[in-house]
């Protein structure tokens, strides 16, 4: 979808603010918001791209102005309302009417397990990859409706396959609750091909799925 979250290459932003860069959390509220947003997913294994897409659907001014983990927390609450684990009325009033039907909260043991268990998003490939390292590819210039991971700045752009990464779950499908493995590549784009003012030989690399390409 076209939204304010798709920030790559957008202009008008000022210097990078390095305040609080050496502390893991910049405030107590930030720490609580982080912990709540990971713990409140509970036993629900929401697809990561449904989480991302729900965040992308925040009110745009909230997305651009609210603290990062505050956004995560509101996203998880929105997902819980959507799935019926808590009602909008309860959230707005701050008063629980009853225990949630899916009240089986993440335990400390679950947390320890998650902290040491990396998730894999690679799946059995469906067919052989269409491209090899060194091949030229062109990305779709229209992008995709719904959740997708082709940023606007790299649409309609010519790049070169830098690496093949196996078949990974397609985010566009994951945001719809579907598991669709698709070939994933790291693609290098000459910065000068992406942005008109660039006059150097720098390269921007993106990880892109096969269906994001059009035939050259």
């Amino acid at each position, binding site marked *: 979808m076209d939204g304010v979250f798709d920030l790559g290459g957008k202009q008008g932003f000022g210097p990078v603010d390095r305040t609080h860069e050496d502390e893991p959390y910049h405030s107590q509220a930030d720490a609580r918001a982080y912990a709540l947003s990971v*713990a*409140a997913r509970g036993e629900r294994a929401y697809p990561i791209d449904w989480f991302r897409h729900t965040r992308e659907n925040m009110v745009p001014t909230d997305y651009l102005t609210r603290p990062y983990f505050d956004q995560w927390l509101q996203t998880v609450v929105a997902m819980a309302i959507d799935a019926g684990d808590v009602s909008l009325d309860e959230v707005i009033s701050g008063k629980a009417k009853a225990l949630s039907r899916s009240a089986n909260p993440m335990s400390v043991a679950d947390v320890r397990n998650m902290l040491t268990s990396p998730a894999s998003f690679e799946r059995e490939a469906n067919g052989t990859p269409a491209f090899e390292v060194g091949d030229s590819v062109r990305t779709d210039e229209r992008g995709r409706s719904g959740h997708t991971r082709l940023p606007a700045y790299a649409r309609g752009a010519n790049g070169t396959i830098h690496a093949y990464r196996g078949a990974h779950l397609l985010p566009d499908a994951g945001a719809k609750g579907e598991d669709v493995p698709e070939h994933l590549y790291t693609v290098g784009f000459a910065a000068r091909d992406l942005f008109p003012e660039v006059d150097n030989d720098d390269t921007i*690399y993106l*990880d892109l799925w096969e269906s994001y390409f059009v035939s050259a």
Partner: protein
Amino acid sequence: MEPSYDSEKVAEIHRHLHSHLPSEPALRVKALESLLVEKGLVDPAALDAWIEAYTEEIGPKRGAMVVARAWTDPDFKARLLADAGAAIDEMGFAGQASGHLQAVENTDAVHNLVVCTLCSCYPFAILGMAPPWYKANEYRARAVRDPRGVLAEFGVGIADAVDVRVWDSTAELRYMVVPQRPAGTDGLSVEALAALVTRNSMIGTHRDLTVSGA
């Protein structure tokens, strides 16, 4: 109920939350915490466990130990560059967002910089919590379009002859930069070398490490 996977529905929920939740972030977080605990959706002990893990245990010291080992053990470095997820697992560091970790190496001719323009993906297991600037609009917008300008703000000057490679984390791959070993460190232990490696050097907003660690 299962999630609806309906963009319009969650957008509408967000609009309600925007209008009705406390506008002050700390109050908003507090209100949501007490409700989620009351609903039985959150165990307060689990909240403390998450916070403590990234305060006490998991942070950029892990990444620094990986880099220092790569500097001193060529076989490990080869494994790290080939499959960083497996290499850090050898050191007991596998964890959140490390399943598809990639290590990219700085050289005299190449400088690497990591960003996630679409959200703020970050290799938590190896670098801990991302610094606020990494998650900020300014960095996400500018790192791909003006990486040399961003680096200059961090005090990093890149010679024209050095190629900048920016890695935009658009999939579940996560990137860490292996900075160059500083000169004059031949006799140092792995532990002493690790103390020289900064968090920013593993994201790419710091280039020239020094013996003083600054």
